[in-house]
């Protein structure tokens, strides 16, 4: 490589925007895709489904982003960011789809930045604070297992756009689940302290497991995976304790509003700005 190569090309006065990887006028992540809603698909239901799945992903990505510079090892910095980025990407595609089919034409940022906590439809497990690494791993294991089971079904959804988003997501989620499962086994089996922390994390997530299994019947699949992982980790099977209400109907814990305040603060301070 020539000594001056990299920065000389930067200093050259290109006049067109094509050198920017994403372009500067990037507006529509589904550009070029046929986005007509097929006959027989209820547009409202489809939009609601996309928003709830997007909200789960965005809120989870926000929590994963909070791990940045706080992870127990550099490999975990990279892995947690990877998972967060995958989920953020899923959220963006799903919001875009929702905005196309709900008749509002809203873009991804309108959903992410200009709705209040009561309008979010994510499950409450996603919004709980990160806690320690054990809690984050238990939560990731549950959420990725549950989301993967959903996405596998959605790959044959009658809306081809949602089906395509799901097909892409399945590969990502399979990795997320694998990562979480490997850590669950390490921590369950590792030391007395890590085992104790995993038991405590399982207690902490228990009240939030009930609401995961109302919309679709993926419970058996999820339970089977969790059983396999907990057995390998020497941990008990988590209890599914019911808690009244559901994030899916806009009932949230006290933790969502502060999460959104941080996420939305700059965007709302400059509502006229483009970024």
């Amino acid at each position, binding site marked *: 490589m020539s*000594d001056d190569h990299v*920065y000389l090309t930067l200093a050259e006065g290109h006049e067109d925007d094509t050198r920017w990887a994403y372009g500067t006028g990037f507006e529509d992540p589904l550009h070029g895709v046929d986005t007509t809603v097929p006959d027989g698909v209820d547009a409202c239901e489809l939009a609601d489904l996309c928003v709830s799945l997007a909200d789960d992903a965005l809120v989870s990505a926000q929590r994963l982003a*909070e791990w940045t510079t706080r992870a127990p090892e*550099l490999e975990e910095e990279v892995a947690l960011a990877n998972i967060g980025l995958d989920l953020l990407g899923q959220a963006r595609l799903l919001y875009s789809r929702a905005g196309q089919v709900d008749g509002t034409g809203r873009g991804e940022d309108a959903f992410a930045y200009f709705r209040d906590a009561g309008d979010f439809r994510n499950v409450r497990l996603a919004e709980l604070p990160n806690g320690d690494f054990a809690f984050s791993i238990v939560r990731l294991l549950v959420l990725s297992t549950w989301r993967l089971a959903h996405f596998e079904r959605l790959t044959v959804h009658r809306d081809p756009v949602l089906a395509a988003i799901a097909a892409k997501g399945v590969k990502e989620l399979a990795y997320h689940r694998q990562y979480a499962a490997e850590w669950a086994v390490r921590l369950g089996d590792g030391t007395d*302290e*890590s085992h104790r922390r995993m038991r405590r994390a399982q207690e902490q997530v228990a009240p939030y497991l009930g609401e995961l299994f109302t919309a679709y019947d993926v419970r058996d699949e999820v339970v089977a995976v969790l059983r396999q992982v907990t057995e390998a980790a020497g941990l008990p099977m988590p209890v599914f304790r019911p808690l009244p209400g559901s994030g899916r109907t806009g009932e949230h814990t006290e933790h969502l509003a502060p999460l959104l305040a941080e996420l939305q603060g700059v965007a709302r301070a400059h509502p006229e700005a483009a*970024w």
Partner: protein
Amino acid sequence: MDTTHSSPPGADGTERVLQQHFDATIARDQRIEPRDWMPEGYRKTLIRQIAQHAHSEIIGMQPEGEWITRAPSLRRKAILFAKVQDEAGHGLYLYSAAETLGADRADLTERLIEGRQKYSSIFNYPTLSFADVGVIGWFVDGAAICNQVPLCRSSYGPYARAMVRICKEESFHQRQGYELLMTMMRGTPAQREMVQDAVNRWWWPSLMMFGPPDDSSPNSAQSMAWKIKRHSNDELRQRFVDMTVPQAEKLGVTLPDPELRWNEERGHHDFGTPDWDELMRVIKGDGPCNAQRMERRRSAHEEGAWVREAATAHAAKQAARERKGAVA
């Protein structure tokens, strides 16, 4: 790791012959590889430089990492998240390059946390608005590129190869930062003010990233002779200024230096003198964010100790179970 035993062909093993072989390799602009004999000073200098570089990548995640959760659009959030992740990746390969010289990542991390090894002073300044994310990309990654592109030809093979990949990613970050600023400069008056304010705060610390002036840079001469380092601090600083001035003009911001002007005779820009006392204060630990940066790194490391112990314990148990299984 003992790497001093591998003798070059035909050598009789004496230090003098090994040294001659090493000197000849450097003179031919060939690479020194991990198993080659090298003088202790060369090894120590490289470990210090690569470790300091790795620490800078890891500490450097903090100033911008603060803005991932607050990025004002999902696209910017994704870009920033990926950038900060890249820095963790750079830290990883640099620690690995240091390990080829017999250093140990855990030990280097301890040295950082105990303040026995440094990281780039630039990361001790605060990020006060989202425009800082763009300006860091433009200035700090831009300065890093000026510093690091020549390191792709560093005489030590693993370091040089790591730098090739790192430079490609840094140049991507630099463009992303600049592209954010272009978008903001086309935006509202408040956005333009944010950009100018960030430029004002980051310009001088960015010039200091190239280190003290050549006449007071104690380790430079030996590093140049060993071809670990290829250009002097002042040379690189000049390149950075010359590269940045036209970009600032295109962007429509003012660089905060009244002495900055084109010098036809030299074919370079003249510019003012950075406050070297400030650089020394920041290096010694009295910058605006030194304590905060170290505290975050220390607490992440300490709070992660039980996780690393658990992983080690599990691996040991697993190995024991496999041995038992093999016997049975």
